[in-house]
């Protein structure tokens, strides 16, 4: 398919290469904005464009001062610390509730399955601003607004659809006779779950956890409304920075986050391959 057949006319050859160029441009559009940020974050000046010195590859044009600012500025450090405190807790909640429910949902007889699924997926569908507004109203009523646990609960519920989707997808390929065999050999339900089922669905659970983690780690709308200044997370700090006084430190933070997402992507890809191998599929 990818090669041109030898009998292709000149017009067909021309179109083949034009098409490749068009696709190349679209890929460029996708990736360039992210890549451009990286060299700009080493700018020695407080500009958002390439200085003549940078273009001449003069070492004096580059510096680590924006990174230094990120790692020493108390605002940024507090924001980073908040993100690190909130996201894992939210992930833990959504993964433990979500995995349990996904196992329940994949049983053969579940009454109201469609309705339950619709409710559980809804946090992903409802626009964030509406969730944020509703949570702001409701959490103020019950005194959770502006508290650590308010933000954690809000982020946990936003991550749940991702856990449900990935774990149910893994459970589709799960061989039920294994749990029956375990029960037959005298293992209780809890032991069966942790020693037989869990290791097999672990790749799905971990990738669900990564989705839940990144949802919380990257979330800004809900935390803006549900949180108070004490829960200011990294995206919140970036949002303020972009809206009010845009400082080049943001580019350094952005670069750190890009590296972080590359790491996440790699982990996810390795997990996908492992899960396909476990299910006896050929990795494609």
């Amino acid at each position, binding site marked *: 398919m990818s090669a041109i057949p030898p009998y292709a006319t000149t017009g067909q050859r021309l179109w083949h290469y034009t098409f490749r160029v068009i696709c190349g441009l*679209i890929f460029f559009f996708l990736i360039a904005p992210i890549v451009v940020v990286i060299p700009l974050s080493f700018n020695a000046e407080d500009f958002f464009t390439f200085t003549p010195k940078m273009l001449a590859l003069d070492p004096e044009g580059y510096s680590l001062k924006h990174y230094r600012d990120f790692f020493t500025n108390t605002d940024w450090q507090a924001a980073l610390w908040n993100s690190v405190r909130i996201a894992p807790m939210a992930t833990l909640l959504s993964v433990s509730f979500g995995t349990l429910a996904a196992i329940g949902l994949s049983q053969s007889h579940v009454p109201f399955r469609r309705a339950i699924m619709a409710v559980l997926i809804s*946090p992903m569908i409802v626009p964030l601003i509406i969730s944020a507004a509703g949570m702001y109203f409701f959490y103020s009523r019950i005194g959770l607004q502006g508290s650590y646990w308010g933000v954690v609960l809000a982020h946990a519920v936003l991550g*749940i659809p991702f856990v449900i989707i990935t774990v149910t997808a893994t459970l589709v390929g799960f061989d039920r006779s294994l749990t029956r065999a375990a029960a037959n050999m005298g293992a209780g339900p809890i032991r069966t779950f942790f020693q037989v089922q869990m290791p097999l669905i672990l790749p799905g659970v971990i990738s669900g956890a990564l989705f839940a983690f990144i949802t919380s780690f990257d979330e800004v*709308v809900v935390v803006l409304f549900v949180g108070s200044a004490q829960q200011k997370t990294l995206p919140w700090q970036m949002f303020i920075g972009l809206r009010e006084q845009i400082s080049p430190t943001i580019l350094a933070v952005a670069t750190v986050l890009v590296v972080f997402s590359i790491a996440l992507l790699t982990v996810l890809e390795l997990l996908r391959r492992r899960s396909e191998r476990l299910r006896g599929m050929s990795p494609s």
Partner: protein
Amino acid sequence: MSDITRNDGPTGPMLAADGTPLKRSLARSLRRQKLRALMLIAPLLVFVLVTFIAPIADMLFRSVENQIVSETLPETVLALRDWDAKAGSLPEEPVFAALAADLQAAVAAKTHTRLGSRLNYENSGISSLFRKSGRDVGKWDMTTDGPFREKFIEIDKGWGDIGVWQTIKTYSPRYTPGYFLNAVDLAKGVDGIEARAANERIYITLFLRTLWMSLTITASCLILGYPVAWLLANLRASSANVLMILVLLPFWTSLLVRTSAWKVLLQQQGVINDLLVWIGLVGDANRLVMINNQFGTILAMTHVLLPFMILPLYSVMKTIPPSYLRAAKSLGATDWTAFWRVYFPQSVPGIGAGSILVFIIAIGYYITPELVGGTKGVFISNRIAFHISSSLNWGLGAALGAILLVAVLLLYWAYDKIVGIDNVKLG
């Protein structure tokens, strides 16, 4: 029929190992299985209902709730019941006396300014009327200081304005459609529903703009996503996997990172303008304005949402056998006919899935328009956020949110019909 006769045969009903009839034993085991599944789901369901569904319900409730008037001015609302708002005369003394009593209690509880700001949304000027009157009324002696009608008008002529009383009467019920009417540029007057003043009509325009921009973003995502998805689906697996990373990396990169990248690129002193000046396409004096307008929002959001279009398209195209195209060509179709009559119709489910997904996400987007949209490129969600955090008109924000929510749920229902929510794939 034959089943029943067999069951009722001389040997009696079929029995399970423990001696109960098999039918009952099976039903019990099925019931137990259902119960166990529900027990596993229950904790999460309760969790989602409390932390998510209840807030949404609360928001919907607030979009019609209007208890503040009847709670702050209970006597006045009662007294106003007999007043004919259309007659064109001011209410009588008892109404003013009731207002004096209510307002005194409200001043003591410090709730009169809140009521003032609530009514100010419907009739601007009422807020200052309540604040000003509150100071004086607090000092009155209810038993000796009457009659109150002249005293009120003495404090502020606003109390002699029939419009003020009409507003109080119109908004005295405990629930009101007023916020929803406001959200579609209508108002509730004495004579029923009427259009707002021309300079206050902003929401229909905003809804239309949100719709138009979301459609534009969806269309540009489709135009850019289709060729890329085709290429990914038709390349050898090894090269497709490498190119797939270029799609997945933006998908996994923080939204704030991508938005800040666009903010940096599109500035007048930014990289794109510098490049255009350097090439000589644009003069240094008239650099392009690409940010804080609709162009900026559409460009940045197309970039943000493009992976959501490519991934569903790709998963559908992957299932179309390439031999169909070859068959069409060997039967004499030109390249274009083969694509348009054979390949394209089979990729339509992917187009539907991707387009609805992108549209659903786009229509409720907040962050990117807020940062690169300026004033002309903002969406309805930015207005909702404004009402909730700045103007504090929560009812109106909730009503706008409710309308947006209904639109999104309709689209979600369509998505479920076309694609099925179980078939959503991630990454």
